[in-house]
């Protein structure tokens, strides 16, 4: 019984002191390392001589990763000494003392370089991680948690005014990302893919964010397939075997990578009608002539009117593994063409598949029959309209004259009759 009471007191004492520490209670007797600081700074509403807020929430600090480690304030605010209170204006905190690797990386990357150039709107450690409330990334409440990074980066990259003022590349990329398939899946609790879907740092890196013009950047033209392929491994292996992938392996970076067709931040599911129609134009960036001839076929006309349930480039050529017709493995090779047509036209035969979806009426070598048929039709239209156009104009001229003369005569006639 006595033991129980003693134990009870001990627990109570521990609880009280623990609570006091946690609340940052300024009881000198508790003897915490930050007590002297908290005398002034424990009230979140506290203001310094200049009127600037100097308060912090001791509870939040206690719950933070640094609070958990019971770091003294001076570990970060090294230029403050308990000997002189109130202290002078403090210098910005330098995290590199402990986080040297991250700080070193940061210094050579887009934010660090901008800051070194004097652009003090560029993000520093605190912009992403917070200050007294830094939590481990795996903590769901952390700013750098997988599910919160969109908002953290979006604080700058999703703020229209900031984006405009700081001329951030890509514009409001958070808005684009938010509506993309990645952005949607990231907040879709039912689909259950939240942790598998990338957020900003998965593609851009965290401390080593580099501009895409930098070869070392994960989002550089050369490295994009590798970055996307980290998750989309199957698409990448197929892409590597295709013509575009092969060109890239030969260091021809004019060949498209993932983002050229899918975009970087606005990535949409491949069956979204709007995207399906827009990507035709994307193919046309390089294959313009073939878009022109495609637009002269029923498929091209209907898609141009805004209907996506119709064959587009990828329907016949494939998407990731585009191969030239000369390659037997190509979807449009002589060997495979019919099968490709049959995916939509099950009753198609060999003749049907010999239709040229890119026949060019102006190209005598590729489409001689089209060329002559086109010339014949041009001649026919021109002839008929020239002949009957002239016929009509002359007739109109004569008729107008005859009718107005007749009217004049009649008016004159009736006038004389009235006079009589």
């Amino acid at each position, binding site marked *: 019984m006595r033991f129980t009471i003693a134990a009870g007191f001990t627990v109570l004492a521990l609880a009280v002191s623990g609570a006091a520490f946690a609340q940052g209670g300024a009881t000198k007797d508790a003897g915490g390392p930050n007590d002297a600081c908290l005398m002034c700074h424990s009230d979140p509403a506290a203001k310094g001589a200049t009127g600037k807020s100097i308060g912090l929430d001791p509870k939040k600090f206690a719950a933070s990763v640094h609070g958990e480690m019971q770091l003294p304030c001076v570990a970060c605010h090294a230029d403050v000494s308990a000997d002189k209170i109130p202290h002078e204006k403090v210098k910005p905190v330098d995290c590199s003392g402990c986080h040297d690797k991250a700080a070193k990386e940061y210094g050579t990357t887009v934010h660090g370089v901008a800051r070194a150039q004097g652009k003090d709107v560029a993000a520093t450690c605190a912009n992403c991680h917070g200050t007294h409330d830094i939590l481990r990334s795996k903590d769901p409440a952390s700013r750098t948690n997988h599910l919160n990074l969109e908002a953290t980066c979006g604080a700058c990259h999703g703020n229209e005014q900031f984006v405009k003022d700081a001329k951030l590349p890509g514009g409001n990329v958070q808005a684009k990302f938010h509506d993309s398939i990645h952005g949607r899946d990231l907040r879709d609790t039912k689909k259950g893919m939240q942790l598998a879907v990338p957020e900003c740092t998965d593609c851009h890196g965290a401390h080593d964010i580099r501009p895409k013009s930098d070869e070392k950047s994960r989002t550089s033209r050369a490295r994009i397939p590798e970055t996307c392929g980290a998750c989309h491994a199957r698409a990448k292996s197929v892409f590597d075997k295709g013509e575009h992938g092969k060109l890239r392996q030969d260091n021809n970076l004019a060949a498209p990578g993932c983002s050229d067709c899918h975009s970087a931040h606005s990535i949409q599911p491949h069956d979204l009608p709007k995207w399906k129609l827009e990507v035709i134009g994307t193919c046309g960036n390089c294959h313009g002539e073939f878009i022109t001839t495609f*637009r*002269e*076929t*029923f498929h*091209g*006309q*209907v898609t*141009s*009117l*805004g*209907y996506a349930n119709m064959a587009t480039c990828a329907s016949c050529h494939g998407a990731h593994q585009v191969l030239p017709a000369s390659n037997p493995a190509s979807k449009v090779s002589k060997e495979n063409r019919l099968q490709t047509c049959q995916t939509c*036209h099950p*009753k*198609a*035969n060999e*003749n*049907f*598949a*010999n*239709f*040229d979806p890119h*026949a060019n*009426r102006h190209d005598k070598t590729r*489409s001689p*029959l*089209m060329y002559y*048929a*086109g010339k014949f*039709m*041009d001649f*026919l*239209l021109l002839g*008929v*309209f020239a002949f*009957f*156009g002239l*016929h*009509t104009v*002359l*007739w*109109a*001229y*004569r*008729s*107008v004259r*005859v*009718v107005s003369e007749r009217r004049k005569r*009649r008016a004159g*006639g*009736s006038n004389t*009759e009235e006079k009589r």
Partner: protein
Amino acid sequence: MSSTTTAAPGTAASHAAGTRTGRYYRRFDRIERVMHALLMVTFIGCALTGLPLLLADEKWSAVLVKLFGGFEGAGLVHRICAAVMIAVFVAHVVRVSLRALKGSGLLGVLWGPNSMVPQPQDIIDMYRHVKWFVGAGPRPQFDRWTYWEKFDYWAVFWGMFIIGGSGLLLWFPEFFAKFLPGWAFNIATLVHGEEALLAVGFIFTIHFFNGHLRPEKFPMDRVIFTGRIPEHEMKDERTTEYARLTSAGRLAAQEVGPPSRASIAFGTYVGGASVILGVLTIILIFYSFL
């Protein structure tokens, strides 16, 4: 007396107002009028649903297609109109064939004033007509069918084979591919659109002008809807026919009562709406080519 006869029924105004006085003669029978009305409606139906494909990158094309309930709806209307048009064409050919087998006989169908076959007189008429246009001669006199009417008539034949044929190829490609090579569908796509542009451009400008919009007829000649031509107009425009029938004593047999109010109303409203739709279509096409 003389002034009243020249002024009253002879003017376009009195005709347009629909006065049903004076004598009328039969020009088109009921079946011909119904066929023209069907051709007219289905032609416009095909034009409005087909042109948006040919000019697919125009904004108005997308709007028009949406009005038809999307490209599937427009396609359905296009095919229904096409089927009716082909049926009318076939019915006409059957009718003319039957006429050739009996009645006026083969010769009457192939030659003479009631035949649609171009004849030397048409060349002469055209030459004289153009001379009159430029003020180098008197206005020629015409018989029952003028050379421009024959051109319109044969243009439909030509168009039926070219547009109708290519249209069927594109409608049933799997079937036609059983015996036609792949390039046939390329050619079909090309000529279907080009010939359609020719047909639409011709009907909505030249046929409209010749038939309706020229000052003597403006705004509508309703003879194709009523089937009856007023005597003064027959004397004035079909002088040769009038004289021929009079001298043969067959004019009286052609006389009919005044046109029904319903046929005049149909000509005015449906015919007028068609002309307006056609002219609007031409404006859209011109706008697209600017």
